[in-house]
């Protein structure tokens, strides 16, 4: 279970990477870079054959990780390796429901515990279908992260009331991916969520530059950034894989990630 106790001046920066993209050992280094860049927590994505809620950038990352032989068990173990190698921010496992469903529940939660995974986020498991998994998360001290969307309407209050860790506020209709601009209706929506919530509210889906971060930070508690970072990893992947250029590429990645961080404005 993790709690994100924020000072008024602090903002959440929750990056997403796909476990095993471009190769498992680089994922560990990327997690360390993100921590250095000021990440509050890390979403670690489990590669899946049919990522319904993801746009092309994360679909390609999934494909690269699957080509590396990744699966849900290896992704959890990779999270454990991150923790062993100095990552001490909370790690949230981001996985579609089907891979979870295939594992014996006791085994799944034992794996999470052994590997010090702090949270779980399942993008295709709405409130109505998630009761039993949420209960199990509670009893195993794993924080279950809930999402709200602009279409949640009457469901908003119920979802927010039971939210733990933080509320993941989906900025707009559609799948994950970089967006140049947001529909103006997103701002009142985020304010509504913020007013209802007793836990921090992080805005995700489409956040891809510093201006958007500043804007979202004004009305929420911070941001989740996925596709923009994953696209950067894709761009750097050959240099990240090669031992000679790795450190330089990691530094470049860290500098890039810094732009999304809540620490940035404090410096």
């Amino acid at each position: 279970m993790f709690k994100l106790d924020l000072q008024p001046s602090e903002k959440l920066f929750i990056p997403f990477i796909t476990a095993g993209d471009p190769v498992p050992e680089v994922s560990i280094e990327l997690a360390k870079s993100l921590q250095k860049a000021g990440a509050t927590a890390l979403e670690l994505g489990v590669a899946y054959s049919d990522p319904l809620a993801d746009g092309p950038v994360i679909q390609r990352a999934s494909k690269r990780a699957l080509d590396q032989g990744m699966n849900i068990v290896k992704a959890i173990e990779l999270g454990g390796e991150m923790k062993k190698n100095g990552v001490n921010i909370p790690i949230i496992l981001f996985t579609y429901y089907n891979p979870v469903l295939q594992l014996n529940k006791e085994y799944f939660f034992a794996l999470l515990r052994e590997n010090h995974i702090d949270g779980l986020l399942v993008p295709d498991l709405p409130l109505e279908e998630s009761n039993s998994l949420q209960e199990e998360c509670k009893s195993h001290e794993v924080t279950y992260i809930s999402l709200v969307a602009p279409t949640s309407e009457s469901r908003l209050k119920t979802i927010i009331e039971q939210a733990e860790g933080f509320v993941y506020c989906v900025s707009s209709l559609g799948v994950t991916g970089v967006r140049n601009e947001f529909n103006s209706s997103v701002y009142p929506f985020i304010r509504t969520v913020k007013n209802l919530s007793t836990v921090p509210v992080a805005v995700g889906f489409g956040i891809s530059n510093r201006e958007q971060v500043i804007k979202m930070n004004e009305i929420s508690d911070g941001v989740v950034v996925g596709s923009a970072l994953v696209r950067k990893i894709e761009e750097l992947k050959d240099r990240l894989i090669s031992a000679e250029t790795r450190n330089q590429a990691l530094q470049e990645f860290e500098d890039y990630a810094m732009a999304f961080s809540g620490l940035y404005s404090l410096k």
Partner: protein
Amino acid sequence: MYPYPNEIGRYGDFGGKFVPETLMQPLDEIQTAFKQIKDDPAFREEYYKLLKDYSGRPTALTYADRVTEYLGGAKIYLKREDLNHTGSHKINNALGQALLAKKMGKTKIIAETGAGQHGVAAATVAAKFGFSCTVFMGEEDVARQSLNVFRMKLLGAEVVPVTSGNGTLKDATNEAIRYWVQHCEDHFYMIGSVVGPHPYPQVVREFQKMIGEEAKDQLKRIEGTMPDKVVACVGGGSNAMGMFQAFLNEDVELIGAEAAGKGIDTPLHAATISKGTVGVIHGSLTYLIQDEFGQIIEPYSISAGLDYPGIGPEHAYLHKSGRVTYDSITDEEAVDALKLLSEKEGILPAIESAHALAKAFKLAKGMDRGQLILVCLSGRGDKDVNTLMNVLEEEVKAHV
């Protein structure tokens, strides 16, 4: 009384709504609209008028006397869904969902398609209703079914080739759902089979159930009795669900024929019930073909319409409860059945429907002459002529 789906959209353990939060509200809206129209006499009148005047229902029930004689067993009756407008049962559902979309004030239709039969049906009704229509089709299927792609375009639809995954029906469905998540405020997603999140499996069943209702009445008039066995092919399972629905509470044996491809002991099959395990695909808990870590495996069948790694959740329930028996039929058996029906009855069935025929022919031989077997002939085979030419030419080559 058969209680499914229950209030949370489950058929026993199966079904439900496993979708991103964004889609929960749109699904609720469809559910509400569907509840309102389902038993509304004005809706039924409009729907049945379209089925009659536009699609040509009721479809015929044909006694296949020459095949019956040749096999020497049970009398074989064919429910002729191939005689529908656009050549298959898919139009029944497309017309129903178009009316539902109209009721909801939506004029933009999204559809997925494998072989192109549902895509053609969706494009057709969109033209008739004055809707726009975007059809998602895997790039592999676009190449295999170029004639149907052209048909959809002629009908005014936009066909979007899907390059993600392996470029087949599963990926086309993923992409249609992704597009829907983004455009759910003004688009209606017209699903082609009894798959997907609740209420879709129920909606599609409702708009296919006339198949079984008509066949039951027709057979009663001709033979004065119920069939002993009813057979239908199953990919997602919409024609089968439409046929079985009328017989669930009767003392009739129900059999679904799924695609065994090159054989269920090879990796090349689409036999979801025979070889699948429980999981979630396209928003529904059901059986699917997957590896031990829940990665979905691309299926294979000669028939693009049965080439799907999942199956409707109600079929999953009917299998588990034992009410329906599911068996698999290989490519080769389906092609043989297709040839037999063509030669003996002058009816070229769709390669999908030929799976049901192959199973029915096997069963008929072992039954008494007085017994009756009813087969859903879900579509006609014109679309498969190219595929068949290739298969038969290869057979000839193999023998040279």
